[in-house]
């Protein structure tokens, strides 16, 4: 009898506590406060964040491939140095995001395994090929431009570590977009052949860039819930419209045409109308039938496997030298650096 009563009491307490946690979470989100890693959060919120952040991180590192394709063929040393810095940034962005995702209790290893097994996605834009040098410029202007439009509101996302990673990323993306624009401008104002190359690249990247904002609002699986949780701040269609309106005058300055006969200013709406997006193409690429899906993921797997010996060697080296640093006699850089840190920390 006593035992039963106690059991019920405990259950009741647990339930009240869970409700209190949920109420605290809802209140924090409503008040525009940030949720931090060790706070209680609904499991669905956690899962949704892991899904989105993993997909975002994967996109950053898969996105290195189409651009790295042109590093050795960049037309000048200046462009080459810029492109290398950009591709290195993408690796950095991936790492910021994997770190942020890890605060939710997953691990980078687990996320990479899922990417390699095809169980997590990356942005479908990177399944298109970079056929000419002008594609590098078009990616910077349009793909990074679309990414910025998407990502700026994420700087105010309700999950603290994600929002902080995005602040960093957005600062760096601005360089990516501007270098792309400058590069396209140079081509557009160059020889007729260069101008044509730039136009061709814009023709191929424009529609896939619009697809980057995801399916229309009424078909978007996760949108509504993400908006409630303030992970997302604006709808897919809203951001897509914003991007189109930004790009039109930029294209004019470039002297290039956006490949949409229906694109025109709508005085009444104060926005541009634009043509219908081919969502069948989007779904096909998403399903794995894009021009480069197979190539991107097998290249990623190969890079991971071929780098295994480096990871193992570094682990072995660390194991061999662990403990020696404390005695101060190993003379390795590691021991030296560690002592410096200690000195500064106590200073």
């Amino acid at each position: 009898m006593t035992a039963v009563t106690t059991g019920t009491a405990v259950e009741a307490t647990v339930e009240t506590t869970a409700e209190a946690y949920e109420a605290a979470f809802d209140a924090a989100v409503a008040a525009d406060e940030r949720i931090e890693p060790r706070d209680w959060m609904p499991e669905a919120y956690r899962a949704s964040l892991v899904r989105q952040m993993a997909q975002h991180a994967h996109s950053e590192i898969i996105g290195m491939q189409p651009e790295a394709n042109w590093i050795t063929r960049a037309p000048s040393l200046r462009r080459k140095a810029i492109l290398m810095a950009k591709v290195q940034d993408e690796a950095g962005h991936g790492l910021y995001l994997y770190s942020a995702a890890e605060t939710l209790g997953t691990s980078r290893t687990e996320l990479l395994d899922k990417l390699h097994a095809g169980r997590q996605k990356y942005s479908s834009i990177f399944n298109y090929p970079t056929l000419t040098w002008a594609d590098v410029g078009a990616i910077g202007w349009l793909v990074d431009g679309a990414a910025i439009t998407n990502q700026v509101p994420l700087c105010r996302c309700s999950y603290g570590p994600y929002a902080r990673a995005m602040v960093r990323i957005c600062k760096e993306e601005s360089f990516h977009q501007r270098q792309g624009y400058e590069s396209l401008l140079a081509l557009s104002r160059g020889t007729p052949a260069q101008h044509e190359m730039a136009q061709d690249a814009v023709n191929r990247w424009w529609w896939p860039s619009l697809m980057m904002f995801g399916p229309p609002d009424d078909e978007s699986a996760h949108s509504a819930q993400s908006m409630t949780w303030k992970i997302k701040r604006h709808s897919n269609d809203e951001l897509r419209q914003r991007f189109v309106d930004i790009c039109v005058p930029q294209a004019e300055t470039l002297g290039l045409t956006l490949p949409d006969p229906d694109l025109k200013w709508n005085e009444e709406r104060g926005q541009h109308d634009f043509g219908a997006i081919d969502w069948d193409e989007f779904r096909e690429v998403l399903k794995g039938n894009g021009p480069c899906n197979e190539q991107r993921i097998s290249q990623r797997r190969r890079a991971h496997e071929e780098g295994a010996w480096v990871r193992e060697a570094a682990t072995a080296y660390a194991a061999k030298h662990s403990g020696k640093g404390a005695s101060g006699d190993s003379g390795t850089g590691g021991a030296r650096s560690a002592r410096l840190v200690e000195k500064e920390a106590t200073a």
Partner: protein
Amino acid sequence: MSGSTQWPLWEVFVRSRRGLSHTHAGSLHAPDAEMALRNARDLYTRRSEGVSIWVVPSASITASSPDEKDSFFEPAGDKPYRHPTFYEIPEGVRHL
């Protein structure tokens, strides 16, 4: 897939310029302290954001629990007299 042994996690603190304290920048994986420092330089100071970096094994950090944040920080809550604005000073009194 190989490489399933994950390198330990490190927290990175960056001093952006002399005169300022180190601020948490993020975290990263590295096999040892030396590599953690090098990786931190490549990851968090690509644009001269720092003049000094600390790396600390994440496992070495002891943190207060968010569950008890109210009770843990409560002692300061009822002591407004620790703030200068608590005190009423006649108008016209200067440099106080």
